[in-house]
């Protein structure tokens, strides 16, 4: 599998505080990558670098064919990120336009996403009036409106009940099954270990993943390794 995104010696500093230090990460196409780490470890910051929201202080993010990072990546955070006063279709239409899509493409994508996210019946409902699950689905639909090859989800199941968590994971699988590369950060270690094809631990701005993590983990559960790594780095 070819790498769809590469981070080379990426560091990020806010003033004197080092948030990310010499991060090297190669994300293969079609991967379902799980990111774990303690609160404040730098997961969200890493995701922001991956989505292009923040530029690294040093190092580079490589993409194939010099593509635009923002057009390559779709992002859904743990807080819903849409206009509550607009309807489902209005939100999709607006963000589709922001991605520079034509009316024909947007109309087509909206139809596909509404089916995929099971929001056909709520298409004209004002977003604030949607249920929790519908809001989550709308958020993910907005992340996919421009059909990005990479989808980044920041703690998508946080705050949801079990049924909604199952619904979200089901959705993630369907999206992954479409051939998308999904990067997901979560505190749900069991689900990540169960479903992710690759895992990365973020601890104090550094990454432990790939072969290093595999050799650390061995046959142990991810949670044990996670505790070990995070305690050691405290």
């Amino acid at each position, binding site marked *: 599998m070819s790498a769809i995104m590469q981070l080379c010696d990426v560091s990020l500093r806010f003033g004197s505080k080092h948030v990310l230090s010499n991060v090297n990460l190669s994300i293969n196409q079609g991967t379902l990558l799980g990111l774990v780490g303690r609160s404040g470890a730098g997961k969200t910051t890493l995701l922001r670098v991956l989505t292009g929201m923040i530029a690294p202080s040093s190092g580079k993010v490589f993409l194939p064919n010099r593509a635009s990072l923002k057009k390559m990546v779709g*992002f859904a955070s743990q807080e819903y990120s849409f206009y*509550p006063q607009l309807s489902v279709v209005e939100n999709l239409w607006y963000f589709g336009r922001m991605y520079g899509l034509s009316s024909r493409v947007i109309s087509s994508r909206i139809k596909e996403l509404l089916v995929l996210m099971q929001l056909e019946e709520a298409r004209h409902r004002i977003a604030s009036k949607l249920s929790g699950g519908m809001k989550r689905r709308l958020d993910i639909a907005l992340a996919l409106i421009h059909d990005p090859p990479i989808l980044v989800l920041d703690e998508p199941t946080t705050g949801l009940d079990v049924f909604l968590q199952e619904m979200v994971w089901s959705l993630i699988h369907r999206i992954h099954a479409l051939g998308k590369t999904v990067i997901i950060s979560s505190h749900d270690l069991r689900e990540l270990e169960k479903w992710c094809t690759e895992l990365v631990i973020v601890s104090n701005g550094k990454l432990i993943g790939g072969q290093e993590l595999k050799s650390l983990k061995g046959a142990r559960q991810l949670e044990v390794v996670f505790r070990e790594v995070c305690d050691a780095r405290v």
Partner: protein
Amino acid sequence: MRAFSASFEKDMKLLFRNWTSLFVSVIGPLSIMLVLIIAFSDLGFNSITIGHVVDPANVRFDSLWPKLSYVGNFVPYASLDDCTADLKTQRLHLCLQPSGDALNAYFDNTRELISLILLNQVRAAVNAEKEALVRQKAAGFLGEVKNTADFLDSSGSFAAVLLKDLERQRVDLVQAKSDLRSTREDVELRIDELREVRSEVSSAHSQAESAKSQGFGKAEATLGEADAALYNAYNVAAATGDAASMSAISAARSEVQASRNDLSEARSLVDGELSRVQKVIDGIDEALQSLERARDVIIRNEQRVSNAIETIDQRSVELRDLQTRIDQQGSKLDDLGKTSVDEVVKPITVGFMPLFVGSERLRDLEAGWDLTENQKQRLLNFGTIQTFLPFVLSLLICFVATMLSNILLLEELHSPAFLRNQLMPRSWLVSFGSLFLTVLFVTTCQVLVILLMGYFIFYLDILKSLGTLLAVLLLLIGTHTLIGMTIAYVVRTKTTSLLVCAFFLMVTLILGGVVYPVERMASFMSTVASLIPFTSGISMLQQSLFYNVSLSDLLGPLAILIVIFFGAAVVMCVARWAFMDSCRRG
């Protein structure tokens, strides 16, 4: 372009689906317009109460109260303390206290605006009353002046008559003097003649006396001698007894005696004549004395006449001089008497000439109608209402543009969609531009509504200066939009940001001279006021709307406004950069 139009469409939808922005953009301004229309529908004095202290000993100002009845209700008070007590508790607007010739007006200077307006009315009424009194006195005075002028005129005429009389009298006196002189000369002549006569008579008398004395003496002596001789001869004769001789001698002696008697008679006659001559001489002397006395009298009278003539000459000169002065003064007084009461009462007047007396359209309309006085007054009020339009426009722009841009931007920054918008592959200028355009569009719509109202309801000459108006208005809207956005980026929280906007508006109104004239503030305030977009906006709107001042003539203040606009844009960009930097840091 697609992104821009989508963003604009989104902003418009959000604006009308948000009660706060809906209120600021639609409900609030409409309410303000409605309130203003109602408030200015009838310009006059309402609910004004003025107290006046009653002083039975001073009724001088009693006639004033009915003349001021249009201003408000007049309530009598027994004492000044009661009146000012009610003034302090705002039950009254003014307290008027007659004090001798003065009317003391006690006003609450903490309510300066209405107090000054009312004081102006009172001052105007008092001045009118004063003018009436002065006019009355002036009329009386001018009447007296006229009478005096007439009197002087008649005095001048009388003086002319007197002069003529004096002239005549002088002529008579000169004549009399001449007559006296000739009489004197005659008298002197007569005196000389009489003197000569006297001299001759006296000489003749003397000669006669001497001749008498001599003649008669000799004669008597001769006769005596003769008599004696005759006696002797008689004696001789007697002696001789010459009777014939004695008779002859006696006859001769009798003749001699008769001659002696005749001589004595003649002597007596001569004496008598001599005494008569002497009497004549005495008479002549008396006549001479009389003539001399008469001459003296004539001379004295002549002198008197001369003096009289001199006096008359002097008095004539003086009288002529007096006449000239009387004529001059009379002429002056006559001119003064022709002065009108108005010229005396109002030697200099202040003419209040408002430059703007209503739009041309209003005046054309007025000219085409046959209006009652009440309607004319209402139209005059219309002209006053028209002058409020620049203030209303600037206030609306200041309020709506600032608050709306602030609200919309804060809604955007606090919106859940903010994070997703950071991921969009488009410049921040798209969202900024669409938000800016949204505020510009909404505010411009409201401005257009007001301009339409101004055109169709208040008959303002909008079309003549439409280009300039729109340029100024758009610049004002843009500047205040940027200010609202800057406040949103700096303050970031909704409530505080709205408070800051409200504070900004309040400061703008105060420093812009709405509440208190800038000209009465510290000197540097005029510089500050010129930099406030609100103030310069009102100024430019007034000039273009009421006096059709063109854009080229407004280049100076327009340039300042453009600089402020770009300055606000720079500040807004810096504020945005700081905000985004803090967001990135999390």
